[in-house]
């Protein structure tokens, strides 16, 4: 008969251990009690849920099916309140009594509440569980005043999360510097600067003496006799191991449940794992030790006693986007040699401590890209004598794969879950893993704190035959997010104005890089239904003309497909005369450019021309160059002129990540150079080839074939699918030729012309929605958005020269 294993605690430590136990032959009937009503989730990522980067569902580690599949009885929402070690039973808070043969305590820890008057008021919360997080999300909103008590890892993550939700946040911290358990005073100081740059107020060296208010929180009183207004108080002052049951079970308990290297407690039938445990005098509050302990305990508990747990190098990483902080080991300078680097302007601080030629500790603020290397040195206690000159700045690797190649197969890549390089390579070979998400699913690597994701990427890049890049560069320092991530955030948070985004996710200011990028994204995402903010646009998009080196502008009217008329040319000539336009030029795009126009003349010139804007100044649809097709040409096989005019008419006035130049040619002689355009229609006997991603600029790239179709309408439709796909997925300022090359034409085809009908319909619908709202920007000449949009300010008072 199987033994009954009762697990108290349905968190990461308990379930990681059960996962390991399940790897041995089934010998237990397992019952799991959890006082939370949820299945096991990744507590480390609660701050990501608070910050809106992840949904609650995204952080689930073991879904209900997992319990079912492994025949585990889950009693969620039942708190075990008593244990009887003689009768071998546990009692639930709903009155149930459950017998066990083996008891596993994985009770974790709880938020510690310092003795402060008024903590019982409504609006005082911890930040420890999914329910805490949900409650914070419910109460946090624009202008909510939040005070976070505690400037440690959790407090700062809570502060940023709340701020992202629009709260005005103040952190009150007892110690003179932030995160003093992980950072020395200098490191804490750098971190302080970064938090303040984000717009979070930090008060150091102060304690909270009372929470004020009548029933509900209204403020807090501080030790310096000042008061802060507050609608919400989050207590993140530390955690305490939950050891009450261990006492009742008669176990030896200090600060935590005392265990030996086999993870055994003082009782043969009761075990403990995770944050409630004290091993060699240390209670861990981080995720990596849980997994290591779980593995050892699984061996012991299943009768395979042998592996030992000898402690974990303490390492911590702050999970705030754009605030990189990493700390590990013993970084105190007593009996060790410090090695430092700092750059105040860049906000980078690095410190290593070396003892007996080995790395003892590390602090990284502002740049944590080397954290993995240092972690490995700490773990292996490698002799660094020969590398002393390269501790902070390794000599550049001869090839990019070297870092990975230098690692042994047994070296740990993911410290949280405990996945080695060998295990990852095996997954790549045997399970066909090609992307980081597949790797996560398959090995769980990089699902803990996520700090090894770049190492996992490097491994994939080096080993996987069809590696697909997933990580992308962040936009700029003002807004430290990759663009695809940012698009998700804007969409899910329904943000519609540039300043809203910068206030919540950025530094509140923005720059010439992120502002135009955000302006484009918002216009594209909301199909034109966004809050247009011209201050976030480049001058060209404020006045709808292209600024020249002398501050004058160029005017290019739309001449679709390059087809014009005598009357139109006469009109252009008249305008050139009337406004004394210094230069009239035929462009390379079959259009006419009026150069050297003064800003204040723009509205009148547009009115006199009475032609739509050619939008030659913007990141948008430029033109369709055409050949003369079948009307006059002896060789033409398709009416490229009409097709080009129609293509331009359909796409014009829409904005794109970068400019889009197109062409349509009537035969493969390619007179209008369609094969080096962003989108080209190449006529042939009986149909069209639609080609994309061509270039004839800084570099020359022949366009890839998207599809071959029979009718002009089909060609236009294929072009439309690609066009909208590019709008939605390219990074700002990424031309189609970079986008197609990065994405791969096979994937582009799969996602557009070969996509299932609902997907194609979605692209068409969003395209149509944007098109319906698009207008000729030159109409603004008749009704300027602001009084001085085009004309200079006339001073109210005269000043003599």
């Amino acid at each position, binding site marked *: 008969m199987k033994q009954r294993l009762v697990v108290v605690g349905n968190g990461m430590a308990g379930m990681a251990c059960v996962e390991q136990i399940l790897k041995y032959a089934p010998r237990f009937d397992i019952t799991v009690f959890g006082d939370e009503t949820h299945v096991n989730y990744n507590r480390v990522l609660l701050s990501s849920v608070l910050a809106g980067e992840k949904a609650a569902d995204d952080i689930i580690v073991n879904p209900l099916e997992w319990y079912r599949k492994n025949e585990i009885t889950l009693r969620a929402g039942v708190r075990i309140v008593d244990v009887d070690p003689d009768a071998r039973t546990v009692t639930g808070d709903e009155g149930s009594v459950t017998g066990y043969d083996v008891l596993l305590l994985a009770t974790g820890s709880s938020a510690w509440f310092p003795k402060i008057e008024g903590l019982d008021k409504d609006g005082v919360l911890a930040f420890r569980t999914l329910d805490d997080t949900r409650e914070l999300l419910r109460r946090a909103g624009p202008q909510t005043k939040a005070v976070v008590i505690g400037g440690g890892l959790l407090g700062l993550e809570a502060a940023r999360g709340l701020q992202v939700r629009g709260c005005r946040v103040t952190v009150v911290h007892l110690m003179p510097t932030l995160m003093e358990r992980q950072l020395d005073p200098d490191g804490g100081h750098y971190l302080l600067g970064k938090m303040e740059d984000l717009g979070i107020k930090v008060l150091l060296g102060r304690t909270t003496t009372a929470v004020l208010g009548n029933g509900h929180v209204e403020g807090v009183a501080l030790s310096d006799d000042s008061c802060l207004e507050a609608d919400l108080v989050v207590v993140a002052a530390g955690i305490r191991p939950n050891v009450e049951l261990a006492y009742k079970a008669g176990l030896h308990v200090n600060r935590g449940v005392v265990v030996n290297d086999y993870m055994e407690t003082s009782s043969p039938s009761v075990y403990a794992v995770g944050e409630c445990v004290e091993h060699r005098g240390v209670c861990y509050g981080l995720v990596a030790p849980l997994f290591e302990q779980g593995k050892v305990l699984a061996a012991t508990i299943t009768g395979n006693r042998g592996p030992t747990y000898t402690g974990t190098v303490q390492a911590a990483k702050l999970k705030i986007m754009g605030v990189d902080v990493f700390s590990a080991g013993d970084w105190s300078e007593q009996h060790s040699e410090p090695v430092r680097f700092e750059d105040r302007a860049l906000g980078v601080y690095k410190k290593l401590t070396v003892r007996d030629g080995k790395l003892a500790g590390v602090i990284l603020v502002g740049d944590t890209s080397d954290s993995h290397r240092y972690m490995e040195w700490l773990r292996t206690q490698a002799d660094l004598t020969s590398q002393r000159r390269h501790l902070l700045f390794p000599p550049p690797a001869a090839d990019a794969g070297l870092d990975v190649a230098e690692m042994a197969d047994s070296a740990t890549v993911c410290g949280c879950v405990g996945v080695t390089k060998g295990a990852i390579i095996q997954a790549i070979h045997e399970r066909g893993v090609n992307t980081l998400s597949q790797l996560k699913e398959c090995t769980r690597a990089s699902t803990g704190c996520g700090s090894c994701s770049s190492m996992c990427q490097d491994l994939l890049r080096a080993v996987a035959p069809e590696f697909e890049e997933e990580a992308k560069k962040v936009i700029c320092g*003002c807004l430290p997010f990759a663009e695809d991530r940012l698009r998700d955030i804007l969409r899910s948070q329904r943000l519609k104005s540039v300043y809203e985004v910068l206030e919540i996710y950025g530094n509140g200011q923005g*720059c*010439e890089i992120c502002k135009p990028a955000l302006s484009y994204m918002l216009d594209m995402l909301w199909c034109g239904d966004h809050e247009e903010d011209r*201050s976030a646009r480049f001058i060209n998009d404020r006045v709808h003309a292209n600024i020249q080196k002398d*501050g004058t502008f160029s005017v290019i009217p739309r001449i679709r497909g390059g087809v014009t008329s005598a009357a139109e040319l006469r009109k252009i000539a008249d305008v050139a005369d009337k406004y004394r336009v210094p230069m009239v030029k035929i462009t390379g795009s079959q259009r006419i450019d009026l150069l050297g126009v003064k800003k204040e003349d723009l509205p009148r010139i547009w009115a006199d021309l009475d032609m739509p804007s050619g939008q030659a100044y913007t990141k948008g649809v430029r033109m369709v160059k055409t050949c003369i097709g079948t009307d006059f040409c002896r060789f033409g096989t398709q009416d490229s002129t009409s097709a080009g005019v129609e293509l331009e008419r359909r796409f014009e006035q829409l904005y794109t990540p970068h400019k889009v130049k197109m062409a349509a040619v009537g035969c493969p002689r390619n007179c209008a150079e369609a094969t080096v355009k962003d989108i080209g229609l190449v006529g042939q006997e009986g149909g069209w080839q639609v080609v994309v991603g061509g270039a004839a600029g800084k570099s020359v790239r022949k366009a890839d074939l998207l599809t071959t179709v029979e009718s002009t309408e089909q060609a236009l439709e294929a072009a439309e699918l690609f066009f909208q796909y590019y709008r939605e997925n390219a990074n700002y300022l990424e031309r189609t030729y970079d986008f197609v090359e990065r994405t791969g034409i096979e994937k582009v085809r799969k996602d557009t012309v070969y996509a299932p009908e609902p997907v194609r319909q979605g692209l068409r619908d969003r395209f149509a929605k944007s098109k319906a709202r698009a207008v000729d920007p030159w109409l603004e000449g008749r009704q300027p958005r602001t009084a*001085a949009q085009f004309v200079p*300010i006339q001073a109210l008072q005269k*000043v003599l020269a």
Partner: protein
Amino acid sequence: MNGRQWVQITSCENIPLREGRAVTLGDREIAIFNLGDRFLATDNRCPHRGGPLCDGIVAGGSVVCPLHAWKVKLDTGAVERPAAHDKCVATYATRIDNGVVMIELPNR
């Protein structure tokens, strides 16, 4: 007469939030920026190639020239980018009087 004089320029709403506008005063061309909490004024020409600073994108307390992205600090006129540059644009004191932006000019 040596000294300084305050000149009435235009009502505040003519300069949109976080944008700049140029005004010609005698032989000076001055850019005025609306930073929300204050107005700042500098010479309108970038010390690099004479680009119109009033047409630049405002980044915090600085403006980025539209021609070659030189970055000029609006309160001091110092060039922030390229770094370590000793070139500077002239700045002018401003104040708001009855909803009108005023600039202080040196007399000549």
